[in-house]
């Protein structure tokens, strides 16, 4: 426990270590730590910003989806309307066409009937002439009686 030159040796060693620490240790570590701190702060800020952006984008997306849905339902409604309209139109058309066809058919039928009647009348007149000839057993002068027979046939 003597006080001796150890004191001086230790003072020198201490001074050297302080100098070394000040020159080669402290500034590097502090610099790195400050840089990291800044980096982390920047990173956190960026994260916050990104979160805000994300929220905005989500809101925008939601709005767009809602709008799209509305549009789609509008379109569907319109299409439905149009479809029923088309159906109605074609029904109407079909009905008219049917009626027209029916009318045409009826007209034709009437025509056919008339023609048949005419034929019938002619055949009857011929038959009548033939019948009368048979009855009279004489040939009738066709020219002389045709007017009479035709008149008869028309009366039928």
């Amino acid at each position, binding site marked *: 426990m003597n006080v001796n030159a150890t004191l001086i040796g*230790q*003072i020198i060693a201490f001074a050297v*270590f*302080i100098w070394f*620490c000040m020159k080669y*240790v402290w500034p590097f*570590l502090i610099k*790195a730590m400050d840089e990291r701190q800044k980096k982390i702060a920047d990173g956190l800020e960026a994260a916050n910003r990104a979160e805000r952006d994300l929220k905005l984008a989500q809101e925008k997306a939601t709005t767009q989806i809602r709008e799209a849905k509305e549009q789609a339902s509008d379109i569907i409604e319109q299409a439905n309307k149009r479809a029923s309209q088309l159906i109605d139109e074609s029904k109407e058309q079909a009905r008219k066409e049917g009626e027209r066809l029916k009318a045409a058919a009826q007209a034709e039928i009437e025509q056919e009937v008339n023609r048949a009647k005419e034929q019938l009348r002619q055949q009857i007149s011929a038959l009548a002439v033939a019948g009368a000839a048979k009855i009279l057993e004489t040939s009738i002068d066709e020219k002389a009686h045709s007017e009479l027979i035709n008149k008869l046939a028309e009366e039928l």
Partner: protein
Amino acid sequence: MAGSSTDYIKHHLTNLTYGKLPEGYERVDHDGNREVLQEGTWTFAHSAQEASDMGFWAFHVDSLGWSIGLGILMMWFFRRAAKKANSGVPTGFQNFVEMLVEFVDKTVKETFHGRNPIVAPLSLTIFGWVFLMNLMDLVPVDIIPKVMELAGVPFQKIVPTTDPNITMAMAITVFTMMIYYSIRVKGIGGFMGELALHPFNVKNPFLQALFIPVNLFLEIIALVAKPISLGLRLFGNLYAGEMIFILIALLFSAGLALGLLGGVLQWAWAVFHILVITLQAFIFMVLTIVYLSMAHEDH
């Protein structure tokens, strides 16, 4: 038994001293042979008596060796961390050093409000170094001295902070810095004024002149007490701790039961000592910061 206990303790408290024995000095070796030196000789002291007879120009080789060794180890560690330091993700060892640096930096910023780039690295050096030197106290007291003795080295004290030279050297360095920065910040007049005009300060110049010697006396004592208390506090705590380790170690030679008790006590004291070690390193650092902060304050 009493004699051997005393010898054991004395042996543990003697530093390995290298110094000059004066001409005509009578050395007594283990076998009782006497030898008178013909001329002044630089040599290792073979006994506590020889060590104290070497006077001021002697070195405690063990204290200096361990303290400088630990200092170099610490600086090597710190330097490695400083080289690898970048703003990326720190890992393991890097993290540990940065934690230490941040802790010191925070302590300095809380206490020291001036601008001085030396204070923070100084504090880190003090904290790390004193802690490591104190840590040697946890190495079981007999291991290294015994090994050294087998290797032919007569004494070995491995805890540098139990050597008042070491702690006082650090305190004196801090004291020198205190004086230096006091004068640099306040000027020589300001510094002198601080010593001469406090604590008794009166308007009347005649009365003030009477008070100046009293003030000087009080302030100089207060000033000098700072490094002395700083150095001796660390020394005292560690010396006492070491002493208790040695006393407990005495139990090992007192039979099986007491030896076991000694083992338990060693362990318990070591656990408690972890606190003392850290606390003393921290106190030394904080007081250094406080003293330097006072040196920078201009009234």
